[in-house]
């Protein structure tokens, strides 16, 4: 078997976020966000902690309903969770500990009632893509943190979703592993051809991965402040002059939001950022 992925079936999708606002009781988390995500695009949502980027992602997944506005994927309105929109969680607690790596990856196809043979073939195909074929019969707790996140990625891709949602998937990893995983994510995305919305607070990570970076303002009532297109050749070098220039621009842009967020949490004063 080859690790070649059928790009036709791993289709991307056009996603439209139209004036979406999200409230939890009296708390205004997200305010009137409108954004179009193209098929096959890699979009990063970048912003300070607690700015509502995960909330927006959760609305895309269908876990959190939008209070106002609407989200649609390929013109179908989002009205709840769906296997068309796969989610990679920050914490690998999302893996099923009692299933082997292969059974974890085959979970979606199994729920759809595919044959055992088809399940195993799909699982092995995507385990190959994330470089875990040798570990198919291990259990999640026998793997390192980085490997567990690979399992999560393979599990979502094996379901052939139209769009992959990733909630700071490398946030809990050590710096070295995170770097390796970013390179791997870039390769996996190019080979699978899926649409990705990737939440992160790491500027460098966004530069390595994104076609476009949407910088969000600090919450409450978070919105999108600026959108940057990243036209650098892949795989990207974080230390190239262009990348460094973009990094500085993003840091200035986001720095203001981080200070606002800290003030909001009572952790910094007005003078701090001057």
């Amino acid at each position: 078997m080859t690790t070649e992925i059928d790009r036709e079936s791993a289709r991307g999708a056009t996603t439209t976020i139209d004036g979406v606002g999200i409230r939890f009781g009296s708390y205004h988390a997200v305010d009137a966000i409108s954004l179009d995500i193209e098929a096959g695009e890699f979009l990063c949502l970048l912003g300070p902690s607690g700015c509502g980027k995960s909330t927006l992602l959760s609305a895309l997944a269908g876990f959190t309903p939008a209070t106002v506005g609407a989200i649609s994927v390929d013109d179908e309105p989002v009205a709840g969770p769906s296997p068309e929109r796969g989610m990679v969680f920050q914490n690998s607690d999302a893996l099923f500990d009692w299933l082997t790596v292969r059974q974890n990856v085959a979970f979606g196809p199994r729920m759809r009632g595919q044959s055992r043979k088809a399940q195993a073939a799909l699982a092995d195909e995507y385990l190959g893509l994330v470089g875990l074929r040798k570990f198919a019969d291990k259990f999640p707790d026998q793997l390192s943190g980085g490997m567990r996140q690979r399992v999560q990625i393979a599990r979502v891709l094996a379901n052939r979703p139209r769009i992959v949602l990733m909630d700071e998937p490398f946030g809990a990893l050590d710096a070295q592993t995170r770097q390796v995983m970013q390179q791997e994510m870039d390769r996996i995305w190019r080979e699978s051809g899926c649409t990705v919305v990737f939440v992160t607070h790491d500027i460098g990570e966004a530069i390595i991965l994104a076609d476009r970076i949407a910088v969000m303002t600090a919450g409450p009532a978070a919105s999108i402040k600026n959108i940057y297109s990243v036209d650098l050749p892949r795989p990207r070098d974080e230390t190239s002059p262009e990348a460094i220039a973009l990094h500085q621009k993003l840091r200035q842009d986001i720095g203001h939001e981080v200070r606002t967020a800290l003030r909001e949490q009572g952790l910094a004063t007005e003078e701090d950022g001057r």
Partner: protein
Amino acid sequence: MTSVGTVASKDSTTAPRARRRRSDALSGRLRTVGMYMLSIAIGVGVWQLVAMRYGSALVASPAQTLVAAKDLAADGTLLNSVIASSRRILIGWGLGLVVGVPIGLLMGRLTVIRQLLDPYIEFFRFIPPVAFVTLAVVWLGIGEASKVVLIFYTSVFIVTLNTIAGVLSINESKLRAATSLGASRWQILRFIVLPATVPHIVTGARLAMGNSFLTIVSAEIVAAQVGLGALIWTSRNYGRIDWVFVGIITLGILGFVFDRILRVVASRVLRRYGVKL
């Protein structure tokens, strides 16, 4: 392709180290068994002293108890008692699991069911089975049913409560992951909630087993011909303190053996569900 990082638990430990670890484990186990033996020897010694102090009318000595046990074993009373009580415990406890686990899963998952059943669980779990002995006999007669139902009663609430606790402690991201991978509500119950709750269910089963042993004696108070509880009660009527001692000690040993079997089987068969006992 880039490297895939390291496996957390490596099998490739060098042979001598593995051997040393095995011999460490063996000597550790021998030590445990040795301490158990010592503890039992001290216990029997204290028992002997107490028996000598108070006399055989009040306390049967270890030797007298052993003789009584031999007598009771010889005419088959002891074995029949063990079998009769074990049967009642296993059936009642088994029914408690079969009913308690599904109810616990449903109560954990569906707020409506939880709200409907919670008052009853919270009411009945404070009423000891012995309070129902009379009613059980009046309603169900003096046959096996009344005893089995009392054991069931003492098992089912603790199993239900532990199962609910297990369901409520499932990591939310597991449930979300399963939903967004396309699992239906029923599939989530069957393939996520049940396996994720197994360690709590096993804990509930062990506690229920303990409760069953506490209850069997009261269940056999009335009109049981055989059984360890019946043995203890009838011995009292004959003034045979030594038989009472045999009944009590057999009950304790039987409970220990049942729990051991449960632990070994559960940790072997259910290891992949994270059962560590």
